[in-house]
């Protein structure tokens, strides 16, 4: 291949036109999704809408968790803490003084919080900011360690937040939790947040910052020797992930309307870990696919906990917990057959789709 052709090919691949084409295609998908959400909101029943809301929240959580664990390669175990921070902050902010008085029956709520009541949107954003500020403060000590140690330290932080929530009676209402949170969350909010998260993280990962984060994952020594401040970039990924996780927590609180520290145990983190590992650590596409599969699949699998009638011969009684057993089996099978998760580290790209659907045509970036 001659020099000019190499230049032209590489330039086109990184060109503005290719990017604009991809943006237009993505916009079309967003419009299509908007239409589908409208239809779902109009004709879907309460149960279906609930599942769709959970799918969107899981997408938000998985994609942001994947930013730090998958893309940046810093194995950490704390998202339950950020979800809890977002959920509690936003719920306490939207609850009216009367609602707070009804909730805080053992000890009254602290005065500076008791009289506050703000609308949903600012409360969600503040929920995200609270989580992000904690992430930033926590990032300074935790990113002094790497690998297994990082996992242990972040796991500890996750537990600390939960235990604090359990004991700060006058702020979180302790183990009683908060009840009767206004059900502000709807499909537009949850999917809006999921799309915002995807937009921000995909654009970030596809930029120079994304290359820096991936460089840190693949070879931190090389990244640092080439002038990349790995500590600052880990902190950036961590804080940004916490911001979205906090907002997802706010959505969750206003969806299920009752929160207590029990909701934010390590199990939440564990579920997210399953999602991102199953999807493929480092693949945003994989996180989305696995999040949908997980949120929807865990509802589908409710069937295995019901009594099952086998061809009218006999009936298997319903066993509570069968769902988790089935999940475990699916997970083991998936890990055996897809060692690197569903997507590995590959990503969906419009280029790939165009080349697959219309082979033989020159779809811009690639010479045929």
């Amino acid at each position, binding site marked *: 291949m001659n020099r000019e052709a*190499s230049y032209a090919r*590489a*330039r086109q691949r990184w060109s503005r036109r290719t990017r604009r084409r991809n943006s237009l295609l993505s916009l079309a998908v967003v419009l299509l999704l908007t239409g589908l959400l409208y239809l779902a909101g109009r004709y879907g029943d309460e149960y279906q809408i609930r599942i769709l809301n959970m799918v969107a929240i899981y997408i938000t959580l998985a994609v942001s968790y994947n930013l730090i664990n998958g893309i940046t390669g810093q194995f950490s175990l704390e998202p339950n803490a950020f979800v809890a921070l977002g959920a509690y902050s936003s719920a306490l902010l939207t609850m009216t003084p009367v609602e707070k008085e009804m909730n805080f029956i053992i000890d009254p709520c602290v005065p500076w919080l008791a009289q506050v009541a703000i609308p949903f949107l600012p409360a969600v954003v503040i929920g995200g900011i609270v989580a992000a500020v904690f992430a930033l403060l926590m990032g300074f000590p935790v990113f002094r360690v790497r690998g297994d140690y990082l996992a242990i330290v972040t796991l500890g932080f996750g537990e600390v937040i939960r235990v604090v929530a359990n004991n700060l009676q006058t702020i979180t209402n302790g183990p009683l939790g908060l009840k009767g949170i206004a059900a502000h969350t709807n499909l537009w909010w949850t999917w809006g947040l999921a799309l915002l998260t995807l937009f921000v993280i995909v654009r970030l990962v596809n930029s*120079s910052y994304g*290359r820096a984060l991936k460089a840190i994952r693949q070879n931190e020594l090389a990244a*640092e*020797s080439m002038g*990349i*401040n790995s500590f600052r970039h880990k902190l950036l990924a961590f804080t940004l992930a916490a911001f979205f996780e906090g907002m997802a927590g706010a959505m969750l609180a206003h969806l299920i309307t009752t929160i207590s520290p029990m909701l934010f145990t390590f199990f939440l983190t564990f579920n997210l870990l399953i999602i991102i590992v199953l999807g493929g650590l480092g693949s945003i596409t994989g996180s989305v696919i696995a999040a949908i599969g997980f949120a929807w699949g865990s509802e589908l699998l409710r069937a295995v906990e019901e009594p099952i009638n086998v061809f009218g011969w006999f009936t298997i009684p319903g066993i509570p917990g069968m769902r988790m057993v089935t999940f475990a089996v699916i997970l083991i099978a998936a890990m055996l057959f897809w060692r690197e998760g569903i997507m590995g580290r590959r990503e969906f790209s419009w280029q790939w789709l165009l080349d697959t659907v219309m082979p033989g045509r020159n779809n811009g970036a690639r010479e045929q």
Partner: protein
Amino acid sequence: MNLLQTSNLTMRFGGLTAVSGFTLALEPGELVGLIGPNGAGKTTVFNMLTGRIRASEGSILFRSGDGQRQLVGLKPNQINRLGIARTFQNIQLLPEMSVMENVLMAWHGRLKSPFWAPVLGLPSYRREEEAMVEGSLALLERVNLLDQADNEAGSLAYGQQRRLEIARALATRPTLLLLDEPAAGMNPRETAALMDLIREIRADFGLTILLIEHDMKFVMGLCERLVVLDHGVTIAAGLPEEIRSNEQVITAYLGERKHAAH
């Protein structure tokens, strides 16, 4: 003023002194070779200069802009930003990323746009990215890897990976380039081409180069000045011809004469 001035640079690992009292002055534009038998402490010197390990004693002064900076105690990324780039003896590319991305990554340290600029698609970031792409393509052409731009770096041949490391180091716009065994694993033809490449980039980018190499033909043919390390101690320094006939150097490489005679 010298570009680089180390004095009494010493590195101890527990009871082992890997490098002791290393003193070196580099003038701008020089091409200097650092040689010595295996385990002499050459890579340790590079690791101290680039901040990968912190020197136990001594100082490293580096000219950056108008002033001189003390490099001991700085982090590798800070030292790189001041103008020292390196390649590695055991190649340290990002094997899963494309050749192009490996070079693009090295521009990131100089990026001015904050993280939200690419997210919002700000023109300031777009301009920076376009400059990065053009610059990286030019560097890839320079090291003759343009046609490999989209391939995974891990799939390149050994010699190509070494050249990619050089392109990546150049992308950080260094004034001092440290090459750790750039010719290792290359055949004679590739080695000859590499010598030309190193001379060219020195002239074109106004570089000062310090290199470690075992291939004596390569070192003698390329370097203007040599420094010889043995057991962490500088045993000789001077022009290649002087080094070639230096008794102490021959002893370090081949052992003492009476032993060699056996």
